């Protein structure tokens, strides 16, 4: 027989405790915000300038020796961390070295890389630099700006589209759910101090897209049911819509998560942060489209007069 993630017909009451859910979400958002304000994000060089060197060696890595070897170069703040990944060979030892932006230098000088290589080779002759990336303070400042603009632009474009296709209450619900997702993602990155770079911004926008996808599917059903059951209380209509789409919500989340988890485990450490952000985003996004977006819609109330002629089928994009 068929694999069923949820029973064929469900009748969960998602709204009897809608205030509690909103409250929990609110608390998490506040925690995320506080963590962000207190700890800040662990920005990668994309956003704060500096140099990262990825080293590979066949011998065991000793972070302390590396640090001592680099100390005479006086490069300022240096962070060295060893990287572990199931996809590495047994004698593949990888470390990441992050060096702060040097005063007065836009990008790394060839000399610095050469010196660092010479210093590390003296303690570990088998060492090899597999990648060296360097971003100057000028560019990193601009990258932050562009990233923030991109996220804001994405959210406003969405707000506008949903407002066109639905009603403004839907748009507000959807966008608050997005803000919720973005904030919680930033929160977990700040709490766990995972490296936050340009790719994470891409992940954030994908989360925005995914969460929205989910929210829109629920809203689409709400709109349909609002027309079908003209006298049913809003709460019941919302509940019915979420229950009706629950099977689909779960199916899509599970297939997406299956793919993401495969990538998380097997995709290598270079994109792990990126994939982690997306995995987290899918979970949070699924939750928010049910418990945040709809709860806000419920709180805002919605206009029940759907007699406008061009909205009958619900399959056309309105003329704009």
């Amino acid at each position, binding site marked *: 027989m*068929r*694999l*069923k*993630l949820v029973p*064929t*017909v469900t009748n969960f009451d998602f709204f009897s405790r809608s205030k509690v859910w909103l409250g929990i979400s609110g608390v998490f958002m506040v925690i995320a915000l506080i963590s962000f304000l207190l700890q800040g994000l662990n920005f990668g060089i994309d956003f704060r300038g500096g140099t990262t060197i990825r080293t*590979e060696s066949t011998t065991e890595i000793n972070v302390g020796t590396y640090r001592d070897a680099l100390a005479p170069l006086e490069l300022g703040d240096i962070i060295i961390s060893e990287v572990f990944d199931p*996809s590495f060979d047994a004698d593949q030892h990888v470390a990441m070295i992050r060096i702060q932006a040097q005063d007065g230098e*836009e*990008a790394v000088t*060839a000399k610095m890389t050469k010196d660092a290589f010479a210093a590390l080779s003296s303690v570990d002759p088998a060492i090899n*630099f*597999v*990648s*060296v*990336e*360097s971003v*100057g303070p*000028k560019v990193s400042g601009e990258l932050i700006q562009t990233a923030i*603009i*991109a996220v804001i*632009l*994405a959210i406003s*474009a*969405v707000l506008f*589209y*949903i407002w066109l*296709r639905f009603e403004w209450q839907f748009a507000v619900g959807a966008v608050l759910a997005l803000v919720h997702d973005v904030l919680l993602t930033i929160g977990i990155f700040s709490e766990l101090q995972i490296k936050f770079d*340009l*790719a994470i911004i*891409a992940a954030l*926008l*994908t989360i925005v897209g995914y969460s*929205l*996808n*989910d929210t*829109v*599917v629920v809203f689409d059903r709400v709109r349909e049911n609002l027309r079908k059951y003209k006298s049913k209380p809003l709460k019941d209509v919302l509940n019915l819509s979420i229950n*009706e789409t629950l*099977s689909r919500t779960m*199916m*899509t989340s599970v*297939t*997406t*998560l*299956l*793919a*993401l988890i*495969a*990538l998380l*485990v097997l*995709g*290598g450490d*270079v*994109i792990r942060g990126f*994939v982690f952000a*997306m995995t987290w985003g899918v979970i949070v996004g699924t939750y928010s489209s049910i418990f945040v977006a709809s709860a806000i819609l419920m709180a805002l109330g919605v206009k029940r007069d759907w007699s406008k002629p061009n909205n009958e089928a*619900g*399959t056309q*994009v309105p003329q704009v």
Partner: protein
Amino acid sequence: MLFIDLWKKVVIWVVVALGLVLALPNAFYDRVEQFNDAEKAIEVGFDTPENLKKTELWTPFLPSGLVNLGLDLRGGAHLLAEVQVADVYAQRMTALWPDVRDVLRPERATVGTIRLQKGTPDELRVKISEPVGMDRALQLVRGLSQPVTSLGGAMSNDLDVRAEGDEIVVNLSVAEQAATTERTLRQALEIIRRRIDEVGTREPTIQRQGVDRILIQVPGIGSAAELKEIIGTTAQLTFQPVVGRGSNPEVPAGAGNEVLPSLNDEGVYYTLVSAPVVTGEELVDAQPSFDQNNRPAVNFRFNPTGARAFGDYTRDNIGSLFAIVLDGEVISAPVIQSHIPGGSGIITGSFTVEESTNLAVLLRAGALPAGLEFLEERTIGPELGADSIKAGQIACIVAGIAVLIFMVLSYGLFGIFANVALIINVGLIFGLLSLVGATLTLPGIAGIVLTIGMAVDANVLVFERIREEIRAEKGPARSIELGYEKAISAITDANVTTFMTAVILFAMGSGPVRGFAITLGLGILTSVFTAIFVTRLLVVIWFDRARPKKIEV
């Protein structure tokens, strides 16, 4: 009833077939790549047997477009350089001073004595001792300016001349600055392109970014530092008469002279006449070679004007020192032994073979119009790229299989239809990527994996609808029809919104992020196409054959 017009069926199959054929070369990446390289080489005349043999690796009538691999997958160097256009403005102002002096001098009676003042580098400040003559002075200096045609067609002059107290201040006008920036950037792009082509790496990307930046990506090069040595050097070569030689950098140079350090001998400074006899612009060729002592050197040849100037000068100054200056440093200052009439010569210094080769490349390609400052540089080793591809492939396969199994378990026969569509979908993504010549990056692979997960969404929406209709006791055909009809609104809304974020990512992002946006965006297009058309077509074909009384989804 369930019915799809024949022409629609044909169109769907043709699109699918076309997409898959376009994707096909990627399945044989190495072979097709060798084939393409060989084809290119033969086109420019290298029809060696080896290359001809390689053309047999692939059938010529099949498409041979490949998905470009980004630097993070192939390895290579990435540089973002800012062209120091302000230097060019400054040079222009410095060069203007003699002209200003020459027009004001005959008018001493009205303007008084004239003196150059220190100002910011992008302006020229001249003090006159008779402020009453200011109007006349301004008029004269303005006479030096020339009209600029700007894009809007509005005419303006290249110089802004104004008075500040008893000083005349000259700037480049806004229009001229824009025109200069444009010209400088175009020259810099051209020179960089020539230099990289000289070194002969494959498929470099050299693009202008923003107003004054240039993005350079060269796959396969060992390190960004290497690349920087080639493109970062200005390579302004001049030949200047030597006035004196000493160890004091602060020695007074005298009017029209300058003091420059020696490149190889530390602590040695030459006093030179600023105006060069010949410059690198008059070179027609430069080749690495060896001098009579078998040390690496660079042979060069001048064009006729350069040759004449060089010949005349060497004839008249036998026995004196002559400095060869590169980017403000004296490479060498040999004694002129004899008249050199042929216009060719040799530069010797303490070069290594590599340095002499690089210098020859730089001299051949010409000097950069302005210095470069590097804002961003990334080197990715080819091993890391190969590891990433390997990990990405495994993840793709595992993700794909997991989703396929899950879909069959959930939807049975309909799940198989969705799976066929999913496989076609991945094929179409690669086909489209090859077609538009997009670049696949590591986040791009993540985009494909994400698409695998999300592509089934449209199918899931439809299948769940069909289930609902079946529960509502509709007939099988009617259920399928209604399922598609009702799901379309949700599918549209959901995908339009995701597509919008992909577009924004593409517009705002750069490099790897852009690669992700491309695969995500294309993935949305193909997944909607496969879910709405391909799966439906499969369902209809099956339904026509089987005519089931009851369906189970």
